[in-house]
C-alpha cells in the first residue's frame, strides 16, 4: 500500500568553509529515499544557505517507509572537480507512520560526517501521506507502536499482554567486504550506517508483523542489539513484549500514578534465591522443548518473509501473516480473509475454548515494571549462557544458526523457570560478548508466576494447580515462594513471611526486575556490584571456546558469592535489577554483576557474615580473624544505619529466628515484645502440613553453609578485603541500578543524564587473577567516585539506573561505559518517608490503579478456560462508566496536547529569551520525568553512528575524540526529538559503544548505538489549570501518598 513521503529543505546554517579561497561554500542538498534522488539548487557563496526548496515527493510502499531512512546529503558544488560531501542526515520516518505519534518532522538537524563529525545544521520538513487508511496495516506493520520503555508506557493502559516477540536479521558487514579495501573510510562507514539503519527498519517491521499476527498493536520493552561478528557478518536482533495498548484517552493523570510519581515507600517484597550456579550451560545442550501447538485455521497464512523465523515462533499462527514478498494486489483480499478468519476464530473460541489453549513457546516478558497485581510470585533469577564459535553466515536470508542458538538458550531459561515452579520469565534480556570468533550468548530473567487475567488466553500455562487461596497482601505476595517447598530447586532457607505470616518466603531473593511498586521495604536501597576478572590463555577456535566454557561456571559462582556477601554486608536481603555481564577478551574474562540491594520487609533479616579460619591455628591468627570479624560486624552496623534499615521488631520473632540459627537475629529479638502465641499457632494451623519440613531445612542449611566465609588461603583474605573496600557513596548521594531508588519518593525536577566511558590499559607485567581483580575493583570504585564528585552540586541526589557495560576491546584493555541519570530529591520529606505504611493504604492505591487500568471485569476471571478477548473486543467491552471517564478525559486532553504544529510552536516559544532557536530536550534512562506527565509518545529513537578519525592527536587524543563524539550523538538525538515536536527522551540507553584505536597510526574509530522513546511531557504544575477535572485525581493520589508518609 503506497504512501507519499514529502520532504522540503528549508535552510542551512553554520556550514563549514569548503572553499578556502572565498572562505565560503556553494552548498546544495540531495534528498534520497530508496532509489529516488532529488536535488536542490546550489545556493552560492554562503555558510547560511536558504534553499527553501519545493516539496520533494516520493511515492513508496509503506514497507519501504518502514525499512528505509530518508537520506539527506549536503554537498559543496564544485565546477571543476567532484562535488565534496559536507555531511549527511538520516531521518527515520517511522514515527510518522503511526497515527498516534508525530505528524510532521520539522527542525534543525546536525549535518553529520563520519570523519569530521558535526558540520553545521540543516532545517528540514518531512511529512507522510498514507493513501488508504483502511488498508494501512495490512502489508507492512505500519502503525504498530514501539516502546523502549520496559513498563506500560504512561498514558496507555494495557488491554492484553500477548507475550514475547523476537526476530533477527543478518547481513555481511560492509567493513569486511572486499570492496572495503578500495573505498574510502567515509564510504565504508556510510555504507555501514545505512545498512544498519535498513536492517533495524526491517527488523522492526518484521517484529511489527508478528505483533499484528498476535492481535497486538504495540511492542513494549523493545530491545534491539547489534552483534558485530566481524568476518562472519552483522546481526541485528531484537526482543520485546507484544501488547495491546489503549490510549488512556490521553489523560495523563490516569496513567499509572504510582509509577509515574514514584511516591510510595514502604514496600514489602519477597524474592527468591538465584539459582545461578546451576544455570550455566556451555556448548550445545538440548533442553526439553515445549511442543508448540501450531494452529493454522486459514489458508491465508503464508510465511514468506525471509526473516529468521523458525518454526519456533511463539505467535499463534492464526492471524494473518504477511510476508515481505506478498504482492500488493493481495492487500484488500487479505484483509478480507483476515476478517473472516477472525470471525471464525471467535466463533470457534466461543464453542470450544480448547482451540485457544496453546502454550506459548517462550512465556517471556521484557518488562521490568508491572501494573500492580500482575506479578503473583517471583521465583528468582534464571540465566543461561552459551559459548559459540562464529562462522560465516552463508545465506543471510536463512540465519538459522543464530536463531537456533538463541532458541537453545531460551529453552534453557524456560526449563530453569519451570524448575522454580514458575510459568513465566519477566525482566528478560539477552546479550552477547564477542571476541574474534568466539561469542558468549547470555540471557537472563526472573522466573515468576503472573496473574493470568492480564494475559491473552493461552499465553501462559495455566497455573490453576497453584494454590489460589486467599490472595496474598500486595506488599508481600510476590515474595512468597512459587515452588514446592518439599522439592526445592536449590538449597534455601524458608521462613514464614514476615509481613503476612501466612506463606513461606526465602531468606534472600534475587531478581532482574524493578522493585514492584506495591512492595514493602525497610530503609533505602543501594547499588551493589560484584566484579571479577579471570585470566585466560590465548587460544584459537574450539580450544578457546572450551577454555571459556570451563571458566564461566566459576565466574558465575564467584560473582554470586560476592553479591551475596556484599548484600549481607549491607544488612539487606534482596536484589533487584540484577544484571550479570561476562565479557570476553583475548586473554581474560571480565565479569560485572550490578544490582540494587534492598531490605524487603517480608523477608527475614539477613544473618551476619562469620569468618572461619584454618582449624589448627595460633593465637596471633585467631586475633587476626577476630579483628576481621569485628571489622565486618562494624561495617554491617554502619550500613544499617546508613541505609536506615530498622525492620519492625515485631516480626523478628519468627519461630525459626527464635530457635537461633543466627545470633544476630536473636540479639535483635531480645527486648522486643514477645509474639502473641495465639497468632503464631493460628498461623501454624493454617499451614501446618509444611511447618516441620521448613524446620528441617533450616537445620540442614543453617548459618554455616550460607554465611560463613572460610579464610583458608590468601585468596579468601583478599576477597574479604575487597568486600570491605567498597566505599559507601558520599553524604547526600544514593545510587541504584533500578529505575528508581527504593525508599526515596519525593523527587524534585532537576535531572542530569550522563554517559561516562573509561578505558584502562594494563601493562603486561605478570598479572595474577588477584591483581587483576583488585585493579578492576578499584577502577569501578573510582569511576563511581568520579561520578559523585562531578554531580556534587546536585546533592542530595540519587544516581538512578546506573548501567555499567564492560568490554575487553583489545588485549590488556578494559573498557567501562556508564549511563545513568542523577535526580534530586527533597531530603527533608524523605526522612519521614518510610514510616510504616498500612496495607490498607496500599490496597487502596492499588485498587485505584486497577480502576485506572480499566480492566473490564468480565474479562478478569481467573479461570483459564474463559473466553479470550480480541483487542477490538476488549475495547468494545468497556463498561459505561469507563467510557464516560474516557471521554471526559479525552476532552481535557485535547487542551493539554494541541495539534502538532501548534505544539511545536508553543514549545519553541518557551525557549530561552536569548533568541535561541534550540529547544531544551531532556534525556533520561528512566521511563518518566519527575514532576511531569508524559502526554504523548512520538515514536522510538534508534540511532547508529560511526565516527572515525585519522588525526587523533589533533582532536585531543582518544578522550577528546570520544568526548566530542558522545556529545555529538546526544545532540543528534535531541535534534531528532525536537523535530518530532518532543521535549524529552525517556528510557534512553546507549546499547553499544565500540571503541577502537590505533595511536601509532593516529587513528581511532567508534560505533555508538542509542535508543529511547521520544515524548512530550508537561509539568504537573502547568497541567493543573487546563485539566481541572483530572487534576482532582492527581491531588487524590498525591494526597494519599502524603497520608501514607506522614
Amino acid at each position: 500500500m503506497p504512501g507519499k513521503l514529502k520532504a522540503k529543505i528549508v535552510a542551512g546554517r553554520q556550514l563549514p568553509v569548503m572553499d578556502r579561497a572565498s572562505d565560503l561554500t556553494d552548498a546544495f542538498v540531495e534528498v534520497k529515499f530508496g532509489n529516488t534522488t532529488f536535488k536542490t539548487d546550489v545556493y552560492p557563496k554562503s555558510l547560511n544557505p536558504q534553499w527553501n526548496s519545493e516539496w520533494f515527493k516520493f511515492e513508496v510502499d509503506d514497507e519501504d517507509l518502514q525499512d528505509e531512512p530518508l537520506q539527506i546529503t549536503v554537498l559543496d558544488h564544485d565546477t571543476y572537480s567532484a562535488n565534496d560531501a559536507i555531511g549527511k542526515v538520516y531521518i527515520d520516518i517511522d514515527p510518522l507512520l503511526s497515527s498516534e505519534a508525530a505528524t510532521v518532522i520539522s527542525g534543525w538537524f546536525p549535518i553529520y560526517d563520519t570523519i569530521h563529525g558535526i558540520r553545521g545544521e540543516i532545517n528540514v520538513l518531512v511529512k507522510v501521506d498514507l493513501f488508504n487508511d483502511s488498508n494501512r496495516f495490512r502489508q507492512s506493520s505500519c502503525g504498530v507502536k514501539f516502546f523502549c520503555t520496559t513498563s506500560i508506557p504512561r498514558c496507555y493502559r494495557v488491554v492484553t499482554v500477548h507475550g514475547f516477540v523476537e526476530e533477527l536479521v543478518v547481513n555481511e558487514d560492509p567493513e569486511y567486504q572486499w570492496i572495503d579495501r578500495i573505498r574510502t573510510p567515509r564510504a565504508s562507514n556510510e555504507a555501514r550506517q545505512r545498512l544498519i539503519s535498513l536492517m533495524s527498519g526491517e527488523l522492526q517491521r518484521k517484529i511489527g508483523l508478528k505483533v499484528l499476527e498476535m492481535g497486538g498493536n504495540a511492542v513494549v520493552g523493545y530491545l534491539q542489539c547489534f552483534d558485530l561478528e566481524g568476518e562472519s557478518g552483522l546481526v541485528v536482533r531484537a526482543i520485546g513484549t507484544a501488547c495491546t495498548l489503549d490510549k488512556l484517552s490521553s489523560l495523563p493523570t490516569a496513567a499509572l500514578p504510582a509509577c509515574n510519581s514514584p511516591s510510595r515507600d514502604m514496600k514489602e517484597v519477597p524474592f527468591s534465591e538465584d539459582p545461578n550456579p546451576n544455570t550455566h550451560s556451555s556448548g550445545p545442550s538440548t533442553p526439553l522443548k515445549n511442543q508448540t501447538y501450531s494452529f493454522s485455521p486459514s489458508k491465508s497464512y503464508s510465511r514468506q518473509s525471509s526473516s529468521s523465523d523458525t518454526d519456533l515462533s511463539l505467535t499463534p499462527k492464526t492471524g494473518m501473516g504477511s510476508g515481505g514478498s506478498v504482492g500488493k494486489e493481495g492487500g484488500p483480499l487479505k484483509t478480507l480473509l483476515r476478517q473472516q478468519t477472525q470471525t471464525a476464530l471467535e466463533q470457534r473460541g466461543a464453542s470450544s475454548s480448547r482451540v485457544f489453549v496453546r502454550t506459548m513457546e517462550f512465556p517471556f516478558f521484557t518488562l521490568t515494571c508491572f501494573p500492580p497485581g500482575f506479578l503473583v510470585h517471583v521465583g528468582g533469577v534464571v540465566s543461561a549462557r552459551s559459548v559459540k564459535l562464529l562462522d560465516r553466515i552463508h545465506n543471510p536470508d536463512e540465519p538459522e544458526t543464530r536463531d537456533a542458538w538463541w532458541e537453545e538458550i531460551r529453552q534453557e531459561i524456560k526449563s530453569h523457570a519451570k524448575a522454580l515452579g514458575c510459568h513465566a520469565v519477566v525482566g528478560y534480556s539477552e546479550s552477547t560478548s564477542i571476541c574474534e570468533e568466539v561469542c558468549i550468548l547470555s540471557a537472563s530473567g526472573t522466573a515468576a508466576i503472573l496473574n493470568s487475567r492480564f494475559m491473552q488466553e493461552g499465553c501462559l500455562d495455566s497455573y490453576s494447580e497453584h494454590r489460589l487461596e486467599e490472595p496474598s497482601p500486595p506488599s508481600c505476595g510476590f515474595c512468597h515462594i512459587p515452588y514446592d517447598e518439599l522439592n526445592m530447586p536449590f538449597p534455601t532457607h524458608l521462613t514464614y513471611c514476615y509481613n503476612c505470616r501466612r506463606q513461606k518466603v526465602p531468606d534472600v531473593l534475587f531478581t532482574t526486575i524493578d522493585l514492584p511498586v506495591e512492595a514493602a521495604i525497610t530503609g533505602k536501597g543501594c547499588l551493589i556490584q560484584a566484579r571479577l576478572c579471570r585470566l585466560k590463555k590465548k587460544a584459537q577456535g574450539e580450544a578457546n571456546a572450551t577454555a571459556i566454557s570451563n571458566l564461566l561456571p566459576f565466574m558465575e559462582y564467584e560473582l554470586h558469592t560476592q553479591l551475596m556477601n556484599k548484600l549481607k554486608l549491607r544488612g539487606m536481603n534482596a536484589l533487584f535489577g540484577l544484571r550479570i555481564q561476562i565479557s570476553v577478551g583475548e586473554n581474560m574474562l571480565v565479569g560485572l554483576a550490578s544490582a540494587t540491594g534492598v531490605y524487603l520487609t517480608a523477608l527475614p533479616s539477613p544473618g551476619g557474615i562469620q569468618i572461619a579460619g584454618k582449624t589448627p591455628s595460633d593465637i596471633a591468627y585467631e586475633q587476626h580473624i577476630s579483628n576481621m570479624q569485628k571489622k565486618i560486624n562494624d561495617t554491617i552496623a554502619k550500613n544499617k544505619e546508613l541505609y536506615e534499615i530498622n525492620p519492625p521488631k515485631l516480626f523478628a520473632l519468627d519461630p525459626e529466628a527464635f530457635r537461633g540459627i543466627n545470633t544476630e537475629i536473636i540479639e535483635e529479638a531480645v527486648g522486643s515484645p514477645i509474639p502473641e502465641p495465639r497468632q503464631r499457632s493460628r498461623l501454624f494451623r493454617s499451614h501446618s502440613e509444611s511447618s516441620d519440613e521448613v524446620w528441617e531445612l533450616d537445620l540442614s542449611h543453617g548459618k554455616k553453609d550460607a554465611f560463613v566465609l572460610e579464610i583458608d588461603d590468601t585468596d579468601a583474605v583478599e576477597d574479604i578485603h575487597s568486600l570491605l573496600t567498597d566505599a559507601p557513596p558520599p553524604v547526600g548521594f544514593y545510587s541504584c541500578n533500578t529505575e528508581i531508588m527504593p525508599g526515596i519518593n519525593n523527587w524534585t525536577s532537576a535531572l542530569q543524564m550522563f554517559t561516562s566511558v573509561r578505558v584502562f590499559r594494563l601493562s603486561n607485567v605478570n598479572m595474577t587473577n588477584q591483581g587483576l581483580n583488585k585493579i578492576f575493583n578499584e577502577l569501578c570504585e573510582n569511576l563511581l567516585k568520579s561520578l559523585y564528585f562531578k554531580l556534587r552540586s546536585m546533592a542530595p541526589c540519587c544516581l538512578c539506573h546506573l548501567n555499567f557495560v564492560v568490554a575487553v576491546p583489545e588485549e590488556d584493555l578494559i573498557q567501562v561505559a556508564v549511563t545513568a541519570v542523577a535526580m534530586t530529591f527533597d531530603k527533608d520529606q524523605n526522612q519521614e518517608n518510610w514510616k510504616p505504611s498500612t496495607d490498607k493504604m496500599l490496597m487502596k492505591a492499588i485498587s485505584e490503579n486497577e480502576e485506572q487500568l480499566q480492566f473490564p471485569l468480565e474479562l478478569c476471571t481467573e479461570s483459564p478456560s474463559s473466553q479470550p478477548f480480541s483487542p477490538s473486543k476488549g475495547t468494545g467491552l468497556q463498561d459505561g462508566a469507563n467510557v464516560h471517564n474516557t471521554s471526559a478525559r479525552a476532552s481535557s486532553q485535547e487542551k493539554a496536547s494541541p495539534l502538532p504544529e501548534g505544539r511545536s510552536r508553543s514549545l519553541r516559544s518557551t525557549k530561552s529569551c536569548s533568541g535561541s532557536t534550540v529547544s531544551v530536550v531532556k534525556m533520561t534512562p528512566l521511563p518518566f520525568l519527575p514532576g511531569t506527565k508524559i502526554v504523548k509518545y512520538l515514536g522510538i529513537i534508534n540511532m547508529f553512528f560511526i565516527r572515525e578519525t585519522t588525526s587523533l592527536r589533533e582532536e585531543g587524543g582518544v578522550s577528546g575524540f570520544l568526548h566530542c563524539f558522545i556529545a555529538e550523538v546526544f545532540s543528534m538525538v535531541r535534534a531528532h526529538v525536537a523535530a518530532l515536536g518532543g521535549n524529552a527522551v525517556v528510557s534512553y540507553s546507549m546499547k553499544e559503544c565500540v571503541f577502537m584505536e590505533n595511536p601509532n597510526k593516529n587513528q581511532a574509530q567508534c560505533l555508538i548505538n542509542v535508543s529511547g522513546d521520544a515524548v512530550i511531557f508537561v509539568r504537573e504544575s502547568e497541567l493543573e489549570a487546563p485539566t481541572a477535572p483530572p487534576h482532582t485525581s492527581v491531588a487524590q493520589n498525591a494526597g494519599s501518598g502524603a497520608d501514607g508518609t506522614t
Partner: protein
Amino acid sequence: MEIMSVELDVFVGNTTIMDEEVYQFWLDGYTVSDAVKVRMEGGVLEECEASAEVLQSDTMDQYRTFQMCERLLHTPAKLANQLLFQIPPHRQAMLIERYYAFDSAFVREVLGKKLSKGTKKDLDDVSLKTGITLKSCRRQFDNFKRVFKVVEELKGPLVENIQTHFLLSDKLARDYAAIVFFANNRFETGKRKLQYLSFQDFAFCAGQLISNWTVGAVDNMVEDMDVDLDKEFLQDLKDLKILITDKDLLDQHKSLVCTALRGKTKVYSEMEANFKNLSRGLINIAAKLTNTKDVRDLFIDLVEKFIEPCRSDRWTAADMKLFLIHYTNSAHILDTFKHQVTWDRYMGVIKSCILKMYHD
C-alpha cells in the same frame, strides 16, 4: 611500575556540566596539574570524599569541554543556537562574560597599542611583567582583536554593537568599547607618567570622548561613528586659541575666574599665579588635536601640562573641580568670545577627564 593507566576518560552530560572554579583556572591559563594542585588546597576533596585521581579526571574533563566550547565562544551568538552542547541560558551568559573578562593589569599593558601581530609577539614580556600566564594573555589579546575586527566595520553605536555581537553585559561592553576606541586612536597610555592611571580611568575618559567628540555624537548612522573623532570639531578647536592669544580675553578670563574663586580655595594664590600657564596648556592641547600624533598624546599632555603643575601646587580634587567649573563657565561671559559651543564640547570632556585622572 604502574600496572594500570587510564587510556581514555570522558564524562558527557546531557546538560553540559561546567564548574565555574575550573573554568576560571582554564581562563587563567593554568595547566591541568596546577589547577588540580590549587583545587586540592581549596579543600574540595574533603568536602566530597574524593581522591586526587578524581580531581585530575574531573579537571581534565572540564578542560576538554571548555576547549570544545572555545570555538563557539569566539562568536557568542552561536552558543545560543548550536546543538552540540545543551547549556542553560544563564550558564551561557556566565561562560561568555567570563571568557571576555580581562585582567586590568593586562589591559593596561595593551591599551592604545595597535592590535597587531607585532603586539601579540610581545605578549610574553607582558606575561612576565604582569604575572598573567601567556595563555591567558593571548586569549585576552585575541578577544580584543576579535571584538575590534567585528565592530570596526559596523554602523551604529559602538557599545550596542558590541553587546549584540558578543552578548556581553553593559559594563563589559563599555569596557570593550573603550579598548576598541583606544586601539583605534592609538592613545598613548604606556608612558611612565601615565602609569598611575588605571584602566577604569581611561575607560571613563574613552566613554566621554566617544559620547562627545566622535562623529557619532552628531550623526548616529555612519560607519566608525563611535571610533573616529569628529574631524570638523577638531578643526573648530583651533578657534579656541583666541582665549590665549588675545591678551584682553586672557586677562578678562583670569579675573573672572579669580573673582569667583577668591576665598573659596586654599590654593588661590598658586592658582592666580599659574592661571595663564594652565589655560595655555589646555587650549594648546585643543588647538593641536588636528594632528594625529597629538591626539595620541592627549593624555600625556593633560598630565604634563595641567595635572602635574596643579599637583605640585597641592591642589585638592575639590580645588580642581571648582577651578574647572569656573574656568569653563567664565568663558561664556566673555563678550568677544564667539565659540561657546565648541568650548563647551571641548571643556565638558576635558573637565570630566581631568577630574577622573586627578588622583595619586
